């Protein structure tokens, strides 16, 4: 499946969407996995921010990543903690490290048409994933947001995760 595959929103439609800023617009609207790179020192940092945490410069490029990644961490949430989630539990939250930027950690959800996994064993640390996107209109501006999400991928990977 290509990186621009579109998947329905994993969490309910009334669950909060991010506030879009100059720094995070590319990540949330590019429609492919996009990371922030400092124009001065060329370091990639995530989440994107107004200043570079390495050299404190404040101009950036936004670079495409392959969209292939590895599950670094996972939890299954069973208790809603908010009425908007009451009908959605259990749901998973994962941390993914992009294979081409292994020092970056991206929080998201594993999604999949026929596998909404509810057992922690179904999503294992070290499992390969591939980025897909949820398209949803910005509730304030109407701009199309593309939330990066993840599908379990069958490719072989040899990158161990400790």
């Amino acid at each position, binding site marked *: 499946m290509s990186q621009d595959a579109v998947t329905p929103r*994993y*969490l309910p439609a009334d*669950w*909060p*969407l*991010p*506030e879009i*800023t100059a720094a*995070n617009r590319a990540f*949330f609207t590019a429609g492919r996995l996009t990371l922030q790179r400092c124009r001065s020192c060329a370091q990639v*940092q*995530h*989440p994107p*921010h107004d200043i570079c*945490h390495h050299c404190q410069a404040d101009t950036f490029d936004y670079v495409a990543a392959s969209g292939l990644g590895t599950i*670094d*961490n*996972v*939890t*299954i*949430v*069973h*208790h809603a*903690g*908010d*009425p908007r*989630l009451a009908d959605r539990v*259990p*749901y998973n*939250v994962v*941390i993914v490290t992009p294979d081409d930027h292994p020092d*970056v*950690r*991206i*929080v*998201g*959800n594993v999604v999949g048409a026929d596998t909404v996994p509810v057992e*922690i064993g179904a999503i294992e*640390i070290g499992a390969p994933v591939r980025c897909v996107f949820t398209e949803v209109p910005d*509730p*304030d501006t109407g701009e199309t947001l593309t*939330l990066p999400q993840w599908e379990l991928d069958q490719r072989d990977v040899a990158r161990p995760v*400790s």
Partner: protein
Amino acid sequence: MLGSTAVTGIGESRYYRAGRSPQSAAAMAATAVHAAIADASLAVDDVDGIVTYHPDQHDSAQLWSWLGLGELRFSAKAWGGGGNSGASAVQIADAAVTAGYARNVVVFRSLHQGAEGRYGRYNQTARPARGDAFLVPFGAAMPVVKNALLIKKFMHRHGITQEALADIALASYFHAQRNPRAVMYGKPLTREAYHASRWIAEPLHLYDCCQESDGACAVIVSSADQAPDLRQPPAWLLAGATGMHAGGGLWAFNDTDYPSGRLAPVGRQLWERAGIRPTDVDVAQFYENFTGSTLIAISDIGFCGPGEVEAFVSGKNLHFDGGVLPFNTSGGNIAEAYIHGLQLMVEAVRQIRGTSTSQVPGARLSLFVAGPGTPPSSAVLLSADAP
């Protein structure tokens, strides 16, 4: 710091489940602060400074005036997230008194989660910004979800099992059964009941989570010269520390040294300033918002390596009666009450005085650690012996 200050007074309101207190946060603060002043045998006008932490719902001028206190000479708030600042607030009071800016500084925390909103819930409608923009839209909104991820990764990396989490919960409930002030007094917990309890966010069960509470507590930090004339035996402040390592505050799990608790520097600073080793500590109170947080804190701060922590906490090792490291002897956030962790500081003082309901015999060195949670983290070390 070493020899310049002591905790001379402690005070508490009654502790309740969230929403059950008939008193407001201000009224409970008044109860706790005036109880601490009376406990110290100070006059109201002797107290001349105030410190708290968290975006508390009151500002210091208002609260100070409502409490009928005298001329204010020092006011500060610890800067940082949540309960991690509990010991930092005490350290700030210590620094102010040591510097001579005030003579008796009250450190307090008062919460009415019934009125303020329960800390375990999200319930926010504004679109998440900054680091939260990379967490909340994906469901990492409630504190338990973020902590579950940190704890899960720590356990995975270091081969820690669910039994270690159970040991923390069981020690907390064991001590709470001896403490009539504890909300969970009279409600003992078994290992079977722990494992049978529902998941909140894996690997955290219900009993891995701190309570949501209403209540207030306060301690008074006084200059050393007054301590001999006051009613209570002084709990000498040997050392305080607040900090984290470089890069510890980066957003959304991109902090350096993940999955640590980011409080190794707090341990190093504390042991160096106090001139002791972790093995010298007689009793410890850890801010356990979740059980696994304590496993991380125990290893971060230097009691053992992360791979050794499961053995370190197993069996009765955390019990007051003969444990290797008696832990949360009032029941802690999990089984006494969650007064944002400052009630752990009150218990640390009781251990020095010999008045805990789970008193560690002959306790001379008493530790309070606030972290990992949201950095910077903090810790203070108390001594029964004048430095």
